[in-house]
């Protein structure tokens, strides 16, 4: 399985790297928020609050919409061709997920570089710990996105996911902390796992590592990953996916 995963990861990564513009384009929205909204936000908050929010937005928009690729592969029979090879079903999923994670890491580095240029001053240890959360979250989102893409009618994936991602970004508190929200909105946002991940990221970027918020965020990320990867594997393994 490791060999198959590696082969499929390299193949997918080659395709991604051949379209470098696509990597940048995938990060355009958070970058625009950083450049055009960040300076306004900085008058009432800190870059260490805003940038983690934009990283969550990036994760949702980059890996959360990864399923678009497999919709096309299914339409053109590529997925079916691969499913007749002896490659493990898990490798067919993981090869793609790893590519999405690498893409997300590159995009996050780009976002952080621009963030530092504007005034972000997060400690290196906090940023590195944050990357661990981002990598696990990215893998989970990509696996879930593929599972949804293979379950939904192929024409529904784009409208459904585009509609779902925006409220998830807003409810996570990407642009303004949910502690500023009215009670009903604050309560609603607690349903979303991304809120807890984001709060943990903000703590890490503020240089606070051993806190309850970080522990809860890490735990939510691990549980979300376990659920998403299980669903993704089951969908890839079932007949006629």
């Amino acid at each position, binding site marked *: 399985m490791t060999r*198959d995963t590696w*082969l*499929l990861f390299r*193949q997918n990564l*080659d*395709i991604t790297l051949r379209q470098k513009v696509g990597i940048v384009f995938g990060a355009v929205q958070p970058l625009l928020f950083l450049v055009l909204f960040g300076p306004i936000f900085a008058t009432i908050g800190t870059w260490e609050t805003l940038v983690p929010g934009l990283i969550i937005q990036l994760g949702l928009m980059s890996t959360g919409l990864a399923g678009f690729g497999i919709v*096309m*592969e299914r339409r*053109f*029979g*590529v*997925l*079916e*061709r*691969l*499913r*007749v*090879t*002896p*490659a493990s079903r898990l490798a067919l999923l993981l090869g793609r997920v790893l590519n999405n994670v690498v893409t997300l890491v590159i995009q996050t580095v780009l976002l952080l570089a621009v963030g530092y240029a504007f005034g972000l001053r997060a400690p290196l240890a906090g940023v590195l710990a944050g990357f661990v959360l981002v990598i696990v979250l990215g893998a989970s989102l990509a696996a879930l996105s593929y599972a949804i893409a293979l379950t939904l009618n192929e024409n529904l994936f784009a409208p459904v996911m585009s509609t779902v991602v925006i409220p998830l970004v807003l409810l996570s508190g990407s642009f303004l902390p949910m502690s500023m929200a009215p009670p009903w909105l604050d309560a609603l946002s607690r349903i979303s796992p991304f809120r807890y991940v984001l709060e943990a990221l903000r703590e890490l970027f503020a240089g606070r590592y051993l806190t309850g918020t970080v522990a809860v965020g890490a735990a939510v990320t691990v549980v979300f990953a376990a659920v998403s990867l299980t669903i993704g594997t089951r969908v890839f393994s079932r*007949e*006629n996916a």
Partner: protein
Amino acid sequence: MIKTTGLSKTFKGGVEAVRGVDLSVEAGEIVGFLGPNGAGKTTTMRMLTTLLRPTSGTATVAGHDLLADPRGVRRRIGYVSQGGGINLMNPVAVELELHARLYGMRREDARTRVREVLAQLELEGLEERPGGALSGGQRRRFDVAFGMVHRPALLFLDEPTTGLDPQSRANLWEHIRALRSVRGVTVFLTTHYLDEADALCDRLLIIDHGRIVAEGAPAELKSGGRTLDDVFLDITGRSLREEAAA
């Protein structure tokens, strides 16, 4: 090479696509699987290639039990689906090499084999093109290349020559014959073309309403001066020529 007993598939909603198919294919045979649209050809082929789980029945494909060891089946078969499976973004030779390596080939062996297959199918010079830049005929031949690049013992071809011009069809027939004569590959194919079934196949199986309704060598089926289309019309009540045009 293929042996099925009571192979059936009922889809959600109760649609019985295949109803108790018993068939047997010997090693080295080229067997044609004919039937009207919706008769159960593709569903049967998808079950035999591990893409669909049968609702009931048993099958041994290329020496492996279909239900107990689907991965063993996949190691020994090649499959060319009706719609093909070419990645439109990636150079075709790169995709072929990956495909071969997923069957365990080492990189150098895979590259050598890809060159060999492209030469056999007269596709040299197109290696660097992405699938999206190929003509329909070239794409179909690449589909066949995917099916045979890993040297399968058994090759499933679902409507392999649909959309090809007569010259390309004739060339592909030659390649299929050579696969059997040179390498002893067993071929199980569906087709709507009577001339193809007649010229290429040692034996024909006709399926209708999910059941095998006739079986025999083309010459046997045509006994009494009848054409294959007459036979098909008698058995299924439909003309294969009209089915092909549908």
